[in-house]
């Protein structure tokens, strides 16, 4: 049993680590971007899929993290300090704003996060003297973890891979912890959790702040990745794209959003080279997934797997998509 449990993650990690060997230079760069986006989208997937908080302003935290690196980076050039500062500041902003926001839910939560995101966007757009306004600013800080500047693409790729794996692992740990279970309980039945004596606001606030922190962390990596930040990173369009990535990938799981991020970024990069109408194609895919596969790509893939897999396994047929909150993410290893 034990071997079985460790086999797949090990395999996956090995693939990630060996990938640069088969990819082109551009492929490595694109995969790095996918992994950064995956961290960001996982942070959004966390609050949507496990706490039921649908936010349309999550890019604000991502952008905030990126700007922290860009702005503080002009004064001090220590990668550890900058990345931690980005995560902490985004986390604090998420905590303070969350104090207000988590009182609302559903469409109201969506609207208030949207408004908040646009407010931050406007601040960074307008503060031209500090942030460069619409023209954005270059990131002067160099990536250095204490053993020489990381300038090669492959070096950056490995850094991002480790960041992704660690984020994923921490999120798994969080979800299967009592705290995470409490959060999921709130999503399933809020009044019951209240009746059981849980202070649901505390739980929501914690998961919201955590998610903001992770988004800020991803934003910080993105600032290093592009060496340039602009207010578009905080714009609601980007929040909306992240939301689409979560839904396309599969709500209520951890890997789903990550797959959605990969799917979206790759599609955006390639389809848009052939046609200017790529948002239309994305739109059709999105509608199809929402109509026919509410669990996203992940569910469609599972469906296919169940159809195709050999008969002898049939006796242990399992539900296509595990019930929410009782899924494969929840079982401890």
């Amino acid at each position, binding site marked *: 049993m034990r071997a079985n449990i460790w*086999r797949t993650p090990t395999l996956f990690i090995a693939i990630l680590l060996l990938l640069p060997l088969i990819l*082109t230079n551009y492929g490595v760069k694109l*995969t790095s971007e996918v992994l950064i986006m995956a961290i960001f989208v996982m942070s959004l997937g966390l609050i949507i899929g496990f706490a039921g908080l649908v936010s349309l302003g999550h890019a604000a935290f991502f952008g905030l993290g990126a700007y922290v690196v860009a702005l503080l980076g002009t004064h001090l050039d220590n990668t550890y300090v900058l990345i931690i500062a980005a995560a902490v500041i985004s986390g604090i902003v998420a905590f303070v704003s969350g104090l207000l926001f988590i009182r609302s839910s559903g469409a109201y939560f969506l609207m208030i996060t949207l408004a908040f995101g646009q407010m931050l966007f406007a601040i960074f757009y307008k503060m031209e003297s500090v942030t460069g306004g*619409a023209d954005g600013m270059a990131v002067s800080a160099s990536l250095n973890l204490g053993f020489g500047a990381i300038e090669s693409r492959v070096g950056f790729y490995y850094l991002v891979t480790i960041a992704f794996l660690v984020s994923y692992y921490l999120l798994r740990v969080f979800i299967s912890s009592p705290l995470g279970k409490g959060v999921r309980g709130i999503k399933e039945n809020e009044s019951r959790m209240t009746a059981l004596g849980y202070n649901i606001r505390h739980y929501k606030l914690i998961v919201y702040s955590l998610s903001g922190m992770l988004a800020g962390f991803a934003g910080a990596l993105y600032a290093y990745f592009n060496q340039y930040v602009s207010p578009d990173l905080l714009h609601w369009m980007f929040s909306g794209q992240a939301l689409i990535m979560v839904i396309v990938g599969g709500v209520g799981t951890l890997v789903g959003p990550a*797959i959605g991020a*990969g799917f979206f970024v790759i599609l955006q*990069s390639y389809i848009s080279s052939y046609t*200017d109408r790529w948002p239309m194609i994305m739109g059709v895919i999105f509608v199809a997934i929402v109509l026919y596969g509410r669990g996203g790509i992940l569910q469609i893939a599972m469906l296919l797997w169940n159809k195709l897999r050999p008969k002898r396994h049939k006796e242990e047929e399992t539900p296509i998509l595990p019930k929410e909150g009782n899924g*494969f993410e929840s079982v401890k290893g």
Partner: protein
Amino acid sequence: MVGKKRLGKSRIWISTLLTLVLLVLGACSNQTASSGEGEPIKIGAILSFSGNFAPLSESIKAGMELYFEQNGNKIGNRPVTVKYEDDEANPQVALRKYRQLVDSEKVDLLVGPISSSVVYALRDVIEKDKIVLIVANAAANDISWDKKSDYIYRVSISNWQDGTPGAAYIANNIGKKAYVLAPDYPAGHETIEAFKAAFVAAGGEIVKEAWPKLGNNDYATYLTDIQQTKPDLVFPFLAGTDAIRFVQQYEQFGLKGKIPLTGTQEFLDPLVTDPAGQAAEGIIGATMYTAALDNATNKAFVEAFTKKYGKTPNYFNVQGYDSAQVIAKAVEKAGSVKSEDLTKVLKDIAFSSPRGELAMDPMTHNLTLDMYLAKNVWKDGKIVQEIMGDAMKGLKIPETPPAKSK
């Protein structure tokens, strides 16, 4: 126990899926190298085909395609392929497209972008990768000043050159008190700043500045304000749909004919005046190009353009045409597509543009332009531009930012 078993299955499945996704990444990338005689020259064009800037991008593309078509899609004896990419006017997307073009497609040089924020975003990576960029539209002044790069050359116009040339004529002939209006974003501020400096130097006075947001629908508040301020003239800088709406609402408010409307070259271009219709009649300003310009290159250009596309060319078409032309000239003269050879000839490249005989200013990597005074007149059921004379000959952007006028 059953739970654990199940878990193993789904895990295997998930990771297989992820592997597939990641393998797709690898499979998608294709590599081609190009160099030497007879090998195709690859040009990457980063423009904004979706969103507000779409008509501008389509115009530039049309101009480029016309030039290459006229020359058999060849530079020297090497065929040319142009790869067009859409940056959605978003610098982050533009950077991704840039990497795709440079790393994966291995383009020899770049043309682009529309938006100033995109050119700023690309500037540092271009310096690092040492790849030549021919700027076909982005007008940010700083690309000729602090952000000047050995690899970036502008064949369009800078904001400074857009705002400055009409000012003296307007102050001397139309009125001394100007009401200025521009969208609240960097290009708007840069253009108005340039106009203000030149207008004040010519003895004029700015009575009021208005800064509507970019992509405004309703100019009623500003038009009411103009009615109450009673300036001698209005000088706006607006582009695309903003300009069309402003011109139409200016007429609806009954201001047309009462307070003279002037403006930047955007207001003297078919891209704005065709949809705006008769409302655009009478606008006076300085422009670098109108289809009515009297020179041999322009006559041939207008004829070829009208034949191919069935409409009057606008100045974005010319920017596209000239971008293609400058690339061809530079590659022929340098005899290679290597950046270090190209930059040597691009610094002071001279060419026959439909705008006249033009040359690159080696100090700013920006064109020295002749600016013409033009007026919109209503003729045969459409607006045409009539040239009234020269606004400024050989107008160069200053080598350093001028001191701010306050």
